[in-house]
């Protein structure tokens, strides 16, 4: 049979569009879970009518929740027969497997962005329902330059700053959730049983910690702790990437006994941008390597 008689494969665009349509219903259970929780939150706000309006801010908590979407979506996207490690239905379709995996990642990302937008809108609605206003500014306490936050602090060692959320902070949930999503997707595409690896690694760490603690030192704190801290909470760590610097606050008590939130430093665009560059590169590289595992081979795509 001559090549001109061969049936063509679909275009990447057609596959991507179809995957966006398919991934939506696949994520329905997740939507129901989060939708239920958020709906419940709104009902509680309406019933309790809190004395202070619910603030509309992108803080470490709300940004973490949105980054969590990036963890949850791949769990639903690659389960069962839909894992590329199984030759289930999706992988029998006439699409180069690495491209198919990428199209699925892309489709999941579209829905992730929808989830982030919905979450931000939900926050805005809650703020308005509780009598608050969108925008505006607030006063923050900032620790002395390069200072630390102690359990009890003198107000003289702190400065007050008026803070309003900069526009770039609204990029943080989208970029942060995307990075986390790509990293977790890479995990599912690179490893046949990611759950087993995660549990195994945690158990391994536990065993090493137990053994080393018997030998008189805490391995987790003394050896791995520094690396882990840099990776997660360092200047350009994961917390900066997904939080844009909003993780830099700690609770302290004034001599009067009042508990306040003190900031070590204000979120800055430059620092966040640097974290984005590092983590995005890592996430894209990880995804590229993971997807590469599933390639069908060189060539073979007939023009459509």
């Amino acid at each position, binding site marked *: 049979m001559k090549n001109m*008689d061969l*049936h063509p*494969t679909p275009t990447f665009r057609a596959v991507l569009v179809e995957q966006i349509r398919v991934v939506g*219903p696949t994520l329905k259970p997740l939507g129901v879970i989060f939708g239920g929780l958020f709906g419940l939150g709104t009902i509680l706000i309406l019933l309790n009518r809190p004395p202070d309006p619910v603030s509309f801010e992108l803080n470490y908590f709300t940004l973490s929740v949105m980054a969590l979407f990036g963890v949850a979506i791949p769990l639903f996207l690659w389960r069962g027969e839909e894992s590329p490690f199984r030759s289930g*239905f999706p992988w*029998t379709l006439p*699409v180069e*497997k690495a491209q198919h995996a990428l199209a699925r990642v892309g489709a999941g990302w579209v829905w992730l962005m929808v989830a982030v937008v919905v979450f931000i809108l939900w926050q805005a609605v809650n703020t308005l329902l509780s009598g608050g206003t969108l925008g505006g500014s607030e006063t923050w306490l900032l620790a002395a330059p390069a200072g630390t936050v102690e359990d009890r602090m003198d107000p003289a060692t702190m400065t007050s700053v008026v803070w309003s959320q900069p526009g770039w902070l609204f990029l943080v949930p989208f970029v942060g959730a995307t990075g986390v999503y790509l990293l977790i997707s890479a995990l599912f595409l690179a490893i046949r049983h990611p759950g087993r690896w995660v549990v195994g690694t945690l158990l391994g760490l536990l065993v090493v910690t137990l053994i080393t603690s018997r030998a008189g030192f805490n391995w987790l704190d003394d050896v791995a702790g520094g690396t882990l801290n840099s990776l997660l909470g360092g200047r350009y760590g994961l917390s900066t990437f997904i939080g844009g610097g909003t993780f830099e606050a700690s609770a302290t008590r004034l001599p009067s006994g009042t508990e306040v939130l003190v900031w070590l430093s204000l979120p800055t665009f430059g620092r966040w941008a640097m974290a984005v560059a590092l983590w995005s590169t890592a996430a894209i590289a990880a995804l590229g390597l993971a997807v590469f595992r599933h390639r*069908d081979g060189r060539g073979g795509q007939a023009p459509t």
Partner: protein
Amino acid sequence: MSVARVTPILPVELGAGPFAISTKGLNKRYGSIQALAGLDLDVPEGGVYVLVGPNGAGKTTLLKVLMNLIRFDGGRARLLGLDTRKQGALVRAQVGSVPEDHSAGYEWMRIGRLLEHCSAYYPTWDQEYANRLAAKLEIDLTRRCAQLSKGQARRVQLLLALAHRPPVLLMDEPTDGLDHVARDGMLELLAEHLTDTPTTALISTHRVYEIEKLVDHVGMIRGGRLLAQMPTDVLRSRLRRYSAALPEGWQPNEKDPGGTLTRRAGLGRAMEWTVWGEEEKVVAELSGAGAHLQEITPLSVDDAATALLSTWET
């Protein structure tokens, strides 16, 4: 009584082709299990080739390798001239497959939506034909994939395999899970499809008798190796059952014709041989040994495959 004889030399070459599917020295190992051990197989273009072999012979592995669903360790596999390893997507575009398992599509998806989904993936999808197939196969398009019984899933799989009118069909136990009526309907539909659409079909099954009318080539594999492949005409003409009455003092072991696969004693002095060889030669051998031939019957492909495979098993 059944007595195993020395295995005759059977054909493994099908001439010069053209072949829609061709494998050469195909190897695949799962840990310590050698699923394919240098498999050389040729499926003629436009033919309906049935692949038979015992459980674990490598049939399902071969079908998966041909779609590049699993990677093989050595050798080569071509489908319509395409390298299955390097051109997997293009290969799958040429193939309509009925897989071994009974899962059809995404569990949450309704069948109607599944057809729409597949139409996005196969540019040659024929929706009108898909609707006709759905009606003939009595498929309820509103049902979800997870709600399908084994037989219903098989019918959906057949629909998906045929509706884009692929040049090649790869089917793994296509009648598995179907009741008799559904099976007959499906085979009728398959026969119509093969008549209407130029198609090469490679069918792996333990129930050769069900698809015997459709088949024109047969291949037998065992332990991941090809034992024989030939047109069914050759199989029917070369493998026959000879019934004869024996004279006094007959010593069976010495006087069995060459190519005897099995010998079975009948009532009284009757004896029955299943022999691979040219009929005239076998008749001459038996007559020369004093046997009085009573009946010569060709074997069905199913019986022939069973006879040949059981000979190798011993």
